[in-house]
């Protein structure tokens, strides 16, 4: 008994060590992907410890501090309301990550389940559902998002909904086509012959085999989701002010010739985040789907 336990533990350790060396390999083979992963780690860290990293209240107005250039007290300067830009950037990472992750989670998971059922069941459900997806895919993403937020009202969660509806059809398409190929495999026939229910076949046999494209879509969508949130907030249709959304901060810095730092910090933060997520997505796609390597 005891030896078995030890064996299990050693096996576990070995697996952990294997994981570590795999990370090392990732850094050597995919430096850009690793850089992207690093950006994600830093962002998550900033978001979690935002009040500790940036002690100043990101919403505090101060008439005496309007348009202060970057200095020791205000690393990135202050904006037109005297708010500390560094603190707003740090706290803004929470909004970007929240909107990014939640919309990708809702959009890809919803689209994946719908695509799975659609591909498995076929018939009229599939026919009608896919025409709706066609129509959704045939709309420019930002316009669809603008419409939805306008109609539902500009709140943080409605922004999440608008972005997830944009992601939904592509996740749906990929999982549907994956399901169509996988369901013809012999092990699915075998499961059916053994009397497995449709649900069991879909979620235990087909879904795990369609997981790689699901992950690829999810990471690839992250950068776009953050960018869409920024665009919406920039237009005044996103996370409502005075919340420190990076996109909203840029609309404040539009024409301030005297305070260019207002436009610099949020833009750099956005670029880094989108760059990081895109690179991580590319690397993950290369690893999970060798056919596309180097594209």
């Amino acid at each position, binding site marked *: 008994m005891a030896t078995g336990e030890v064996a299990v533990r050693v096996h576990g350790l070995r697996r952990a060590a294997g994981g570590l060396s795999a990370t090392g390999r990732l850094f050597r083979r995919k430096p850009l992907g690793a850089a992207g992963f690093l950006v994600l780690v830093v962002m998550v860290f900033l978001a979690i410890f935002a009040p500790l990293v940036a002690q100043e209240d990101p919403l505090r107005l101060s008439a005496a501090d309007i348009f202060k250039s970057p200095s020791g007290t205000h690393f990135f300067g202050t904006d037109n309301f005297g708010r500390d830009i560094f603190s707003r950037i740090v706290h803004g990472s929470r909004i970007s990550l929240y909107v990014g992750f939640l919309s990708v989670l809702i959009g890809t998971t919803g689209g994946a389940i719908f695509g799975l059922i659609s591909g498995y069941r076929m018939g009229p459900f599939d026919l009608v559902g896919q*025409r709706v997806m066609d129509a959704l895919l*045939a709309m*420019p993403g930002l316009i669809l998002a603008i*419409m939805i937020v306008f109609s539902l009202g500009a709140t943080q969660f409605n922004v999440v909904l608008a972005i997830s509806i944009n992601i939904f059809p592509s996740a749906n398409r990929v999982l549907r086509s994956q399901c169509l190929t996988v369901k013809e495999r012999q092990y699915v026939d075998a499961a059916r012959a053994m009397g497995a229910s449709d649900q069991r076949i879909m979620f235990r046999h087909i879904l795990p085999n369609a997981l790689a494209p699901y992950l690829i879509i999810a990471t690839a969508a992250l950068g776009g989701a953050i960018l869409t949130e920024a665009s919406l907030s920039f237009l005044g249709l996103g996370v409502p002010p005075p919340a420190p959304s990076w996109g909203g901060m*840029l609309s404040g810095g539009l024409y301030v*010739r005297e305070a260019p730092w207002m436009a610099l910090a949020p833009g750099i933060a956005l670029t880094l985040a*989108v760059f990081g997520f895109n690179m991580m997505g590319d690397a993950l796609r290369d690893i999970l789907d060798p056919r596309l390597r*180097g594209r």
Partner: protein
Amino acid sequence: MKQYIARRLLLMIPLIFGVVSIVFVVLNILPGDVAASIATQGEEEPDPAQIEAIRTALGLDRPLHQQYWDWLSGAARLDFGDSLVTGQSVMDDVRRRLPVTIQLGIMSLIIAWAIALPVGILSAVRQDSWMDYVGRSFAILGLAMPTFWVGILIILMLSRYFNWIPPLGYVGFFDDPSSNLKQFIFPSLALGWALSATKARMIRSTMLEVLREDFITTARAKGLREFVVINRHALKNAMIPVITLFGFNIGLLIGGSVLIEQIFTLPGIGRFLVTGLNSRDFPVIQGVVLLIVVGYAFVNLFVDLLYGLLDPRIRYA
């Protein structure tokens, strides 16, 4: 080819119908109350009688199926009613503003190709050289930098270091080409760079594939100059998949022009939409969104047909 065109045109009917219906559902049936949000000015609670009045004026008090029918027939006649703010016909305004957005789009696409072609080709031909790395970084950066931020940076730079901003107040190209171009060149650069990124990456990867094909070796073996091999034999074949990006690009272009027109104060369709959104001008929003969405569907159809023309395999699939 005729059969292919007929089939594609037939498929357009359910697509347009679906797209128009989704716009209707999103703007009219989703929980948000448009009349209430129009009536709400600032922090005050809107007056219920006023909400009712707006609802009647917009015809939102009628049964849904009737509203839907009117919406469809209005859309078919390209009649979107009058703006709540200016009282002018939405369609007239659109007609006036369309040339601005189209010029912005065309110039951005030209710039995008002018950047993407040399960058993509050089990156592929000199794979893993410094040119390749510079080209790829350039493309990656173009993908990651938000277009509207690039626009802001351009304006900041021009005004701070050159003490110059593009002339305000739109001038038509045929009235005064030089000041028209002065207005359009910078917004087009911002948009064009963003569009060039995906193109350059795709051209690079398809070129890399094509360059390994046997017919390239043959072309070289028969003594053709490298320039001819690259531009005549390789590029032509590498371009086919890149064309599919065109439709996707137009989608980006539409979203991007909404933002860029706002930043550079160009009176195009995108700015019209944003103005409408800010003043909660429902007919304007409805009309502009519908036009954009239907126009986009037709652009995609056009791309598909072009694709079929260039690649016979598609037609018979």
